[in-house]
């Protein structure tokens, strides 16, 4: 057992309202720079939709992620032979138009325009060329099913759905959509790291954050192709690739990443998970039908004395182990089993888990023309959900419908349980059958409810001390600096230093 710690996340999709506050918070901090305007380290997509960059899930186009190769995995779009073949170009890379051409408006023209017969306008100006441009696409133009023929109906996940099932998703009163906020998954088996010819990408030992060393990056852009989530971006101005850094400077000072801190719906949870690094290869290369179970099985119980002992041998700090024991992610993923990885079939073992959306709560119109909100109608079974299970299973479980159904049964049971507590119009037998079916008790239902709805900042974000002092001691002898640093001067004092 080779225990390591990993900062992991859970996004609760039932709570996401699609406001893009996270995206804007991230943009203001990290990507509001020349060459980075088109990047959205955090973006919110509408599902069904094509996402950003367009059709990023279609690895026949972008050749990202890993493919099973015997008892190991190999990169779908990179590797020694493929690299040699494509040494002078990177054929499956998204081009700027696959994202969108970023622009700004000439607002100053509104003030400076001379008096005339026409209303002054602020023209759109490309942030790439600086020339006036025709806006053709934006990063979230598929928002809320807008442009449905072009975006929602082109959803890559539809290839697992029959034509009739697809059509049903766009019929009035049967329509459904949900949001899917995405950041870098800081995977356990990151394809971007595996693809980099310069060795510029690395996974931080202490918390598993995947970073690009800007000094070593040589603009190969293999990571852009290799990342199946398309969360590595090339900065055309600096000639280096960039990606989500999980706001590690904030994490190191015990603050939540900006996207999570700013989240209006409080859908985001962050905590430490302990995992067994020895299993990565076996899990990543297991059969696709097992990949969700094997992936979730790689995370270890932080209460297990054997795990704690092995963690200490590997130098994991006590504070980190304690954080892992209190981790909300561990509760969602392992204890309650209601969070699933996004596209596990890419075999990167992502560390961002999603609670799938139980949507929508179905009210029916009663005979007198009013909404019927009686529990037995409102909280109908999982099988009567509008959203096809098949669609969600292609998103979260590599096509395993039962896994999604299991999660929904638990989410549904929590609602029935809470309805019983607050409205008290659920029959004992109905409650018991739902709870038994889902395999949870009232205690767990309340715990899920509490962390979902009432959680405080400290419960949602359990951030361990970063112990940067230990990281520094690994590289330098702090004794060398004793007595040499301290008070600084802008101008030398007259008596000298």
């Amino acid at each position, binding site marked *: 057992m080779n225990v390591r710690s990993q900062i992991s996340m859970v996004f609760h999709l039932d709570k996401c309202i699609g406001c893009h506050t996270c995206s804007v918070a991230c943009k203001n901090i990290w990507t509001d720079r020349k060459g980075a305007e088109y990047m959205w380290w955090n973006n919110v997509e509408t599902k069904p939709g*094509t996402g950003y*960059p*367009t*059709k990023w899930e279609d690895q026949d*186009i*972008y*050749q990202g992620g890993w493919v099973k190769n015997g008892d190991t995995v190999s990169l779908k779009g990179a590797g020694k032979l493929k690299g040699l*073949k*494509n040494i*002078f*170009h990177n*054929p*499956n*890379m*998204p*081009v700027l*138009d*696959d994202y969108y051409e970023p622009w700004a408006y000439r607002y100053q023209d509104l003030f400076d325009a001379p008096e005339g017969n026409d209303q002054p306008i602020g023209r759109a100006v490309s942030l790439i060329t600086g020339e*006036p*441009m*025709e806006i*053709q*696409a934006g990063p979230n133009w598929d928002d809320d099913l807008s*442009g449905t*023929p*072009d*975006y929602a109906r082109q959803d890559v996940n539809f290839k697992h759905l029959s034509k009739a099932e697809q059509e049903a998703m766009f019929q009035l009163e049967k329509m459904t959509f949900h949001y899917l906020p995405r950041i870098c998954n800081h995977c356990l088996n990151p394809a971007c790291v595996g693809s980099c010819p310069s060795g510029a990408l690395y996974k931080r030992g202490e918390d598993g954050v995947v970073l690009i060393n800007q000094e070593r990056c040589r603009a190969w852009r293999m990571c852009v192709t290799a990342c199946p989530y398309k969360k590595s971006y090339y900065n055309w101005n600096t000639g280096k690739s960039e990606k989500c850094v999980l706001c590690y400077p904030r994490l190191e000072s015990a603050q939540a990443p900006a996207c999570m801190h700013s989240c209006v719906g409080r859908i985001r949870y962050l905590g430490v998970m302990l995992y067994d690094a020895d299993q990565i290869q076996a899990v990543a290369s297991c059969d696709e039908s097992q990949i969700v179970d094997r992936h979730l099985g790689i995370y270890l119980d932080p209460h297990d004395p054997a795990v704690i002992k092995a963690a200490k041998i590997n130098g994991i700090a006590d504070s980190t182990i304690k954080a892992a024991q209190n981790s909300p992610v561990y509760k969602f993923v392992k204890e309650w089993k209601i969070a699933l990885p996004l596209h596990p079939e890419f075999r990167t073992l992502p560390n961002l888990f999603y609670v799938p959306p139980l949507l929508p709560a179905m009210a029916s119109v009663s005979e007198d023309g009013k909404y019927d909100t009686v529990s037995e109608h409102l909280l109908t079974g999982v099988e009567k959900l509008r959203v096809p299970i098949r669609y969600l299973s292609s998103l979260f479980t590599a096509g395993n419908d039962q896994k999604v159904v299991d999660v929904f049964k638990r989410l549904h049971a929590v609602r029935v349980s809470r309805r019983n507590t607050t409205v008290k119009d659920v029959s004992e037998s109905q409650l018991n059958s739902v709870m038994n079916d889902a395999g949870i008790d009232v205690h767990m239902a309340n715990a899920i409810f509490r962390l979902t709805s009432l959680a405080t900042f400290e419960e949602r974000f359990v951030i361990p001390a970063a112990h940067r002092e230990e990281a520094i001691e690994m590289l330098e002898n702090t004794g060398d600096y004793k007595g040499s640093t301290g008070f600084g001067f802008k101008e030398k004092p007259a008596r000298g230093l």
Partner: protein
Amino acid sequence: MKLKLIGVSVSMALSSLSATAQDGAAVFKQTCSACHSIGKGKLVGPDLKGVNTKRSEEWIINFVKNAQAFGEKDADAKAMITEYGYPMPNQNVSDADIKAIISYIAENSPAEAVATEAAPATTASAPAAQDPALDPANASDEDILAGMNIFSGKQRLENGGVSCISCHNVNHNDLVAGGLLAKDLTKVYERMGAAGVNGILSAPPFPAMASSYKDNPLTEKEIYQLSAFFNKAASADVYSHQRAYNSNLLIYGGGGAFVVIASIIMLMFIERKRKCVKEDIYKRQIKSACSK
């Protein structure tokens, strides 16, 4: 001063002349005898008997040094080249040596022959035909095979000379295509006859060939076997498959190379993401007048 210089150069010229003049016989044997005889009939080139009286010394020097260039200026030389089908190879011999050869020829040309001039042209194989056992036409299959092996380099030359196929080609079913640097030897036996082949091989008159074999000459046996092979090759040529790519090497080779390089380049582009994924979306969009 000037006089002194002239005196020195004249005396040098004289001394060099006297030094080489004695070697007329040796030079003739080394340089000319492969193709020419004196009074023994036509070999590859004409019988040189009495040439000293037929042509001026200057004419001979010009012809020997660069027959082709001279042929363009001189009608007699041109007629000579036309008669034999190909110009005599340029000989890297000094004027003095040529003069020595001329005097050697003059000494050895019987007077009566000069008077009657045109001796009846003897057949090409005449000198070699003296001994029928040595006639390549009667060679055994083993000798022909050995000759082919020598030609192709399968068998090393005894004195270490370079194998013929490096520069020459012979159309033969059992041989790969030979070099294109020197003349095609498929029909050499018909063209030059046993004596010519024998003469060229024993004392190569062509500068490149001469320098190649100067220090490692062919043995008589090798010459015989090669002659036998050339004889066989010339007669078997009509039955052999023509290696058309010999002359079309550039077209076939260049074409082949183009196909290989093009397919390597195509390999790079195969499976390539060729267009923006939003192309269909853009096509549906209504374009405003301002941007095309």
